[in-house]
Structures are given as structure tokens and as C-alpha cells.
């Protein structure tokens, strides 16, 4: 390994020596002699300033030819990250510089973010479209604190985000107050409860091995974020001469599949059931997962209730019974939960008055099967694992990876008699599905011409403009009364990517932009229905979209409130019998009303609105789509009904 030509003592050794009072000796002698020149244990400390003054100027290390961060880039390139999302921070400045110069700012390409929550949120959305993580670099302490909520969302959503965390590990090498303030003894401690794995390697080779290991761990179900500390000195010191460092080969771990006996038993129960129901949440990670869900449902002619954590099942498929979930589950004699996050609330219903009361929502004796990778790995502190649900058969495995063997097992066990029975029930399910779809359309008519614009109307207007495009909806539908899922034809894996996972507000905008970044190379029209309160957490991500030319249509669901909380305070005010006219205090985003069109324009985006008349909405969306098709983001501000 080459060093600078005039570098007789490397910077790290020089500074260490200075800190122990041996700088002069180190400067005057060759590096190996430095240790021998160390003062006797009880000797009085030498006058540091005098010694420093005495140090010849030509021993100061001014350049480094090959810093450790170059090697880190070699390692990261081997993992084939497309993008790096980061807000700059000097704890990873060495890596930053190596990535853009040594690495050529290609694979990964630096995406400038205005907040670490945006960096991680973008990684969250990107991974759900692309099926793999992007790289996020985070500044020590304060940067990680900004990032933490987004990391928690990705953790709860079982999404891989690959985080490199800068830190000034060696206290002797910190330059001043800021470095100390932005350093930690154990930097990843604050997020350890909600990452799958973290490490703090002390050498470049350890970094390389941990980097590859982290990638494998993050992308093996259950997928979760990982964090790797990159020490400031490890980045900035040169790779030692003769260092035996190498980039380990990445071998992806196959996802865990169900035990063959348990899968056969699940198939037996499914085949024998008269009214089986498949409840999906995060089962379809890939296009293959979606196809296999269709195959399994059609094989059994079993209805699917989709909790929509992913794009698990086509919305207009005759066996999609999400719209009539309550009746479907109530009539089931067997419920198979596939990567179902909250099984308890699926088979129980709650009435949330002063004390919540639960009652079963299933028939007595209904059997429950669970297939989930969550049974393989849980953390203790944060309670995202939901209430414990007794089931009759629990298969600890990745459901998508288990589907092929389950399908084969079902095929082996189906008799001709069962096939005839399935055909009959399939016809009934198809009729019930159509009835439910019609009921949804009728419900959408309510307040059709209202101002503010109903969320059903907004969804229908948007659908009219995108239905003939290769579209991808990358926002959560929950706060729009799920209208897109009720009215649109979702049938591709990128048509929907679920929600934030941890219900952490502030996910929507960055995750949408991250998903749009992933969609860009596929030429898809990315659309997002953006909640106003969510955007205001870190609106700078709009600038990132404009700056990085990320095409996305953002339709504001602008109800001018933190509406969920508004309803909660209304409930409290009512419960306490103290009047119900002040619930808006602390919840309303008005006076002054936020002008999101101008906000977008200020970030360099197309912005239009606010639109309050439903007749004006379609043309505004059309204009915005033209902008998006030219490769830029666009925002249309829509004044909407609350939900």
C-alpha cells in the first residue's frame, strides 16, 4: 500500500504520540522508534506545547493516498447498492469523499437528503419496490437521533435498510467540541432495540466482513434494518502498508421455509376446510409472491382478506374479500394468516370505549394457522409483535418462500370431490365479491360533489388519469378511507407497497420519493396521495425529489389537521363531559393555512392548488402528469374531507 511520499509517520500514530507526550520523539525518529522513546512511567509529563512547537513542519501529514474509506467503497460496491441517501456529516466525511471521487458517485450514487429521517424513509420505500436495500449514511449521535423514527418504521415493517453510522471512536483523535458531542462509546446502542444487527468493527478487514454479513442479515427474512459503525479514523487513516485486506464474497442466504411435515398438515387442514380464509399482510415480497398467492387462493377457491402490508392479492380478483372482511372471517372454519402482523385483531373485534372490550369475531372452533418469519426473530423492548394469539398450527418460516411447497402439498391432497365443492364455493365467493365492489362504488357516491373534495372523488379522479399508465401507488391508503384499494384495479406487485409499519408519521413523503427513485428506471408513473401532517415533518424531501430528478406525482390529501389525533381529543373531551368545541387546539393545521403548491414551487417543483372544487381536479392532475412524464416531480394540493 502506498503512502504519501513525504509521509514518514502516519497521521494517526503522530496524533496518538502527541497525545501521550511523545510527539517530538516520534517526529524526530522513525515510527518504530516512537515506542522506545516513550517516557518512563513516573516521569513528569513533558511540556506539550514546547514539544509541539519543536516538531519539524515536514512531519505533519498533509495527504493520504489511499484512505481506508476507499477500501470501504470497494466493499460497498461489492454489495451493489444503487443509491446512497444521506445528509452530510463530518463523522463520515472520509467515506463521503471516497464514494463521490474514488467511487465515481456511481453505484451508489449520492442522493442528497435534507434530514436523516428522509434518508432512511427513502431507503424504506425504495426497498419495498426494488426488493433490496439502498445505502444510508448517518452522522454520529444527532444524525442517528434524527433517523431513529424512520429506522423504527422500517423495523416494524420488516424492511431492510442498510445504515452506515459515522463516529469519532478514538477520543484522542477528536478535533474539538463538536466531535466530542457527536461521538458515542456505543453509537448503535440507541437503535439496537429496532435493528436486526449492528456492529462496530475496529479494522478494515473486520469492516469488510461485517459489511457483507450485515447485508445478508438485513435481506434474510424477517428483513430489518442493520447498522454498521464506520469509525472516523478507520475511514481517514491510510490502508496500512502490506495490509491483508480483501472483500469477502456475498452469498445470499436462502429464506427460511416451513418444515415439510407442518406444511403438509397445513395443506390437509386447508383442503378439508369448508370455508377457509387466507389473511395476508406482508406475504408477497416479490412478483412471484403475488402470483403464488393467486395460485393458492384459486386452487382452494378460498377468499383472501388482505391487510395490505404489501401488494398481496389483486383487488378485483373474485376471491378478494377484503371489502367484506368481517363477514368473511366470521364465516370461516379455518383462517390461515400469512405474514399476518396482528393475528389477534383479525380474529377478535374491539370496542374502544373507556376500557377496550374484546370479543371473538370468529366461529367457535375455527382453526387458525400461522405462517410467519416473525416467529423466528423478535426483540423484547418495543412491542410491535402485537398480542399473543393461540393458533392451532404455527409455522415459523417466510410465508412467500413457503408458498411453493404449500401449493404442491395442497395439490397432492385435493380430491375430485373437493374440487367440485371448491367450484361451488368459488362461484358464491365471486358473487359476494362483486356485491361488495358494488357496495363500495355506491358508498363512494356520498358527498361526490362536496367541497372540500371527498377522498373517494379524489381517488376516482386520480384513477381516471393513471389507469392506462404503468402506475405505482406508493402511499398508504388508510387515511383516505382506503378508497384507492376499494376502487382501483391493483394487480402488479409494485401497484402498492403498504404503509409505514410502525405508524410513525413522517414516513409517507420520504418513502414515496424513495419508491419513486426505484420506479424511475422502470419507467413507471409513481403516484402518492400525501397526508399534509406527514409532509410537514420533513418537507425537504421535496427538494431531494426535484434536485435528483425523481419523477413522482404527489396529490395532497390536505385536511388541514393531524386528523387522527383530532378525533382522539374529541373522544377524550366527550368522555370527560367538558365540552367538545376545543378539540382542534393542538391538532388543526390552519391559520395560516399551509400553501403546499407554493411549498413545492419553492423547492423547484411543479406545484398547483389548493383545489377545492372537484371539477377542477382532473385537469390539474393531467397537467401534473405531463410534468412527471418529463422526468420531474409535481404536486397538486387538494383540499379534502377529513377521511
Amino acid at each position, binding site marked *: 500500500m502506498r503512502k504519501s511520499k513525504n509521509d514518514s509517520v502516519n497521521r494517526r500514530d503522530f496524533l496518538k504520540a502527541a497525545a501521550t507526550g511523545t510527539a517530538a520523539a516520534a517526529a524526530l525518529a522513525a515510527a518504530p522508534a516512537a515506542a522506545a522513546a516513550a517516557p518512563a512511567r513516573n516521569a513528569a509529563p513533558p511540556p506539550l506545547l514546547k514539544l509541539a512547537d519543536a516538531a519539524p513542519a515536514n512531519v505533519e501529514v498533509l495527504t493520504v493516498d489511499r484512505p481506508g474509506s476507499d477500501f470501504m467503497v470497494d466493499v460497498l460496491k461489492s454489495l451493489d447498492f444503487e443509491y446512497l441517501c444521506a445528509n452530510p456529516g463530518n463523522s463520515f466525511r472520509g467515506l463521503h469523499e471516497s464514494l463521490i471521487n474514488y467511487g465515481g458517485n456511481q453505484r451508489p450514487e449520492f442522493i442528497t437528503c435534507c434530514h436523516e429521517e428522509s434518508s432512511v424513509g427513502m431507503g424504506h420505500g425504495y426497498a419495498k419496490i426494488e426488493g433490496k436495500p439502498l445505502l444510508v449514511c448517518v452522522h454520529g449521535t444527532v444524525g442517528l437521533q434524527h433517523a431513529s423514527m424512520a429506522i423504527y418504521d422500517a423495523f416494524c415493517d420488516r424492511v431492510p435498510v442498510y445504515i452506515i453510522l459515522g463516529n469519532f471512536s478514538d477520543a484522542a483523535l477528536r478535533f474539538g467540541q463538536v466531535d466530542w458531542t457527536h461521538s458515542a462509546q456505543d453509537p448503535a446502542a440507541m437503535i439496537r432495540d429496532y435493528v436486526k444487527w449492528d456492529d462496530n468493527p475496529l479494522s478494515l478487514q473486520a469492516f469488510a466482513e461485517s459489511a457483507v454479513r450485515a447485508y445478508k442479515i438485513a435481506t434474510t427474512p424477517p428483513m430489518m434494518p442493520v447498522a454498521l459503525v464506520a469509525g472516523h479514523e478507520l475511514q481517514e487513516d491510510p490502508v496500512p502498508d502490506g495490509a491483508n485486506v480483501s472483500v469477502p464474497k456475498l452469498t445470499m442466504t436462502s429464506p427460511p421455509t416451513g418444515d415439510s411435515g407442518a406444511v403438509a398438515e397445513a395443506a390437509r387442514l386447508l383442503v378439508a376446510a369448508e370455508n377457509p380464509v387466507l389473511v395476508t399482510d406482508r406475504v408477497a415480497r416479490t412478483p412471484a409472491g403475488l402470483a403464488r398467492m393467486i395460485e393458492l387462493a384459486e386452487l382452494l377457491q378460498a377468499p383472501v382478506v388482505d391487510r395490505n402490508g404489501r401488494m398481496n392479492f389483486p383487488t378485483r380478483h373474485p376471491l378478494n374479500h377484503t371489502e367484506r372482511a368481517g363477514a368473511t372471517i366470521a364465516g370461516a372454519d379455518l383462517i390461515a394468516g400469512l405474514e399476518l402482523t396482528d393475528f389477534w385483531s383479525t380474529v377478535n373485534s374491539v*370496542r*374502544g*370505549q373507556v376500557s377496550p372490550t374484546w370479543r371473538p369475531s370468529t366461529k*367457535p372452533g375455527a382453526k387458525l394457522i400461522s405462517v410467519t418469519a416473525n416467529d423466528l426473530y423478535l426483540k423484547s423492548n418495543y412491542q410491535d409483535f402485537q398480542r399473543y394469539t393461540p393458533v392451532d398450527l404455527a409455522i415459523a418460516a417466510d410465508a412467500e418462500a413457503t408458498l411453493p411447497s404449500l401449493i404442491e402439498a395442497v395439490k397432492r391432497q385435493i380430491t375430485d370431490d373437493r374440487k367440485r365443492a371448491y367450484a361451488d364455493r368459488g362461484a358464491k365467493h365471486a358473487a359476494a365479491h362483486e356485491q361488495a365492489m*358494488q357496495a363500495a*362504488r*355506491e*358508498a*363512494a*357516491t*356520498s*358527498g*361526490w360533489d*362536496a367541497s*372540500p373534495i*371527498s*377522498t373517494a*372523488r379524489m381517488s*376516482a*379522479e386520480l*384513477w*381516471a388519469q393513471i*389507469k392506462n399508465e404503468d402506475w405505482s401507488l406508493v402511499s398508504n391508503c*388508510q387515511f383516505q*378511507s*382506503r378508497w384507492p384499494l376499494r*376502487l382501483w384495479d391493483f394487480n402488479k406487485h409494485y401497484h402498492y407497497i403498504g404503509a409505514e409499519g410502525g405508524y410513525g408519521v413522517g414516513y409517507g413523503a420520504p418513502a414515496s420519493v424513495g419508491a419513486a427513485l426505484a420506479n424511475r428506471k422502470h419507467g413507471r408513473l409513481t403516484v402518492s396521495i400525501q397526508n399534509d401532517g406527514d409532509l410537514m415533518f420533513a418537507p425537504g424531501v421535496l427538494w431531494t425529489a426535484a434536485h435528483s430528478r425523481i419523477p413522482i406525482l404527489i396529490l395532497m390529501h390536505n385536511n388541514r389537521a393531524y*386528523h387522527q389525533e*383530532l*378525533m382522539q381529543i*374529541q*373522544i377524550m373531551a*366527550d*368522555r370527560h*363531559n367538558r*365540552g*367538545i*368545541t376545543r*378539540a*382542534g387546539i393542538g391538532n388543526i393545521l390552519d391559520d395560516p393555512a399551509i400553501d403546499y403548491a407554493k411549498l413545492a414551487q419553492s423547492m423547484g417543483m411543479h406545484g398547483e392548488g389548493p383545489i377545492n372544487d372537484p371539477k377542477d381536479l382532473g385537469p390539474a392532475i393531467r397537467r401534473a402528469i405531463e410534468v412527471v412524464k418529463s422526468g420531474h416531480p409535481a404536486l397538486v394540493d387538494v383540499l379534502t*374531507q*377529513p*377521511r
Partner: protein
Amino acid sequence: MRKADSVRQLILIAFALALMLTLACPGARAQTSAAPPAASVDNGKKIFSRAGCYACHGMQGEGTNLAPAIAPPPLELPAMIGYLRKPTGKMPAVPVAAASDQQLGDIYAFLKSLAPASNSESLTGNADNGKKLFASYGCYQCHGHQGAGAATAPRIAATALSLAGVIRYVRAPTGQMPPYASKVVSDQDLADIYAFLKTFPLPAPASSIPLLNQ
């Protein structure tokens, strides 16, 4: 099947049979002419008893664990007739062959006569004030600014509920809606809000809206 469910099922079946047979009986059927006679509380009481409505709804229509209270009727008469012709949930349907609209009107009159002392009949709503209250009381939060409904709460614009039914439900709701005491929202306030909700027409059918047929 659990025992309680079996009993419940049997009661429902018995109720349905009794309803069909009793209402189909000529003696019980109202003798209608061109102009329907005024509703008869007495006849409604007889039908209510013979048809076994009480089996699920209680002798005084007060409700049981099998079915909700129906005195005073929570729905306006046309809505109640519509519901009985095509009910949801466990309520058995009452076809015209089993009971005429007139007979159902008699039952309705009987149920109204059973209502606990309420001033809802004497209340006159002010729609303009109701509009203001709908906003200031935060009804819009769950039901939408025009009462059009959302995932959080059903449509209440052009409600089919009677004012008495609204008042009763608001005071003691059965779902996720929090109860509103009269200290917080008076009967007169509710009458005004009710009048406001009644100013809205029923939505157009989805078939008439091209955007909902794509």
C-alpha cells in the same frame, strides 16, 4: 356450535316462522282500501306479540342480547319498512306476502307508543344552526363536513334514522362512537343537527357516475 348459539339460532328461526305465519293470517292482516287507514297502535301491539318480535327485541321493544332496542323506532317508517324487506345481519326478512306496509306501520305506531318520555316529538330543528353545530362540535371529524361518511364513521347525511333514534344512539352508542351526554350536546342541539343532515339529498346511484364505472 356452542349451546348459546344454537338457542339463538332456534329463536331466530322460530321468530321468522311466527312472523311469516302470523302476518300472513287474514285475521291479522289489515283490511286496506284505496286510502290506507291510520296506523293502529292496538293492531300493532297484537302483531308484535303474535309474530314473536318480542323474542329478540323484548316485550317493550327494549332490546335483548339478541337484538337491539326498537322502541322508539330508530328508523323512520319508510326506512324501517325497507330494512325489514331486506335486512342485514341476523334479522330475518319480512316479505310483503307476510306483512303489508300497513301492518308494519301499525307495529311502528305501537313501538312509538312504547317510547320512554322524550321530547323529541316536540323538537323543531334549525338547519342553519345545525350546520354551525356540526362544525363546532366536531361531528365532521368522523362523518365528513357534509356528513357523507368515511372509513371512520357511516354516512349520516339524509339519514334514515328518526330524531328519536339519533338521540338514543348518540346518548348510548353501540359501536366505536363515543357517547355524548346531554350536558355536552342537548336534545335541541341534536334536533338542529338532525335538521341540517336532512337538508342533503340522497346520493346519486353509482351507475350514473362515469368515474365510478371505470
